[in-house]
């Protein structure tokens, strides 16, 4: 069974490669290359897979899931400038792809014993999102 919880956070970022010219950065990232940065209301959907515990009827304690999401994602990233305040985005371009991979990396170790992190869906805007399931 899949169980999904949604949280949101707002953050600013800039998508620029260190050492690349203005021209190349604009070609790669478009408006997102503006050096002053800009922001998004990110929406994160985290999906777990497991079977309901026969005693509790739950795949995972949603309160505990909420705490993990707050601690690992919302508190460190909400109302932050990702490039300046949230490693590894001081050296990694905070594209929606890279932010999703980082969220996966932070969340994945919390789920063990028959429950696994199945998918991270991260919306950068309503019209752009990625799904990441830990594939390399």
């Amino acid at each position, binding site marked *: 069974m899949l169980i999904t919880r949604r949280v949101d956070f707002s953050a600013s970022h800039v*998508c620029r*490669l260190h050492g690349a010219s203005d021209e190349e950065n604009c*070609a*790669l990232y*478009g408006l997102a290359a503006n050096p002053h940065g800009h922001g998004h209301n990110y929406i994160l959907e985290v999906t777990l897979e497991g079977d309901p515990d026969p005693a509790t009827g739950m795949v995972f304690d949603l309160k505990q899931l909420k705490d993990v999401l707050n601690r690992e994602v919302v508190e460190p990233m909400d109302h932050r400038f990702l490039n300046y305040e949230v490693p590894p985005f001081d050296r*990694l*371009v*905070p*594209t*929606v*792809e*890279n932010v*999703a*991979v980082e969220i996966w990396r932070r969340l994945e170790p919390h789920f063990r014993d028959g429950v696994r992190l199945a998918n991270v869906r991260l919306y950068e805007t*309503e*019209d*752009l*999102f*990625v*799904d*990441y399931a830990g*594939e390399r």
Partner: protein
Amino acid sequence: MRLTRRYRFSASHRLHSDRFDPAENERIYGKCNNPFGHGHDYVLEVSVRGALDERTGRIVDLEVLDGLVNAQVISRFEHKNLNRELGAFEATIPTTENLAIEIRRGLQQAWHPAFGANGPAIERIRLEETKRNSIELQ
């Protein structure tokens, strides 16, 4: 990793088949058979699967994707009468199903020239006719 981008276009259509008599058309297509046609604000989701480019942090060049979808879908269908202005629907009923198939055909035809053989792959499209109904093609 899979990236999904949403696009919008508005178009009109009428669902009607010459194979059926007026009463049968009315029975099958209901309000959509109105002879004057009607329109929708369509939402198209295009999902792309690709490997993360470690240098750029991207799996697909969004400018190329947007350009391809604009050329193959938006510019063809935006504010058009699907029955009258597109050859594709002269003999085919522009149901959401058939429109999705036509959109996928157009995207697949232009995909490799745009992205190359080793580029990202189109994995799925989803077409919403209204918020209450949608078609998904893998």
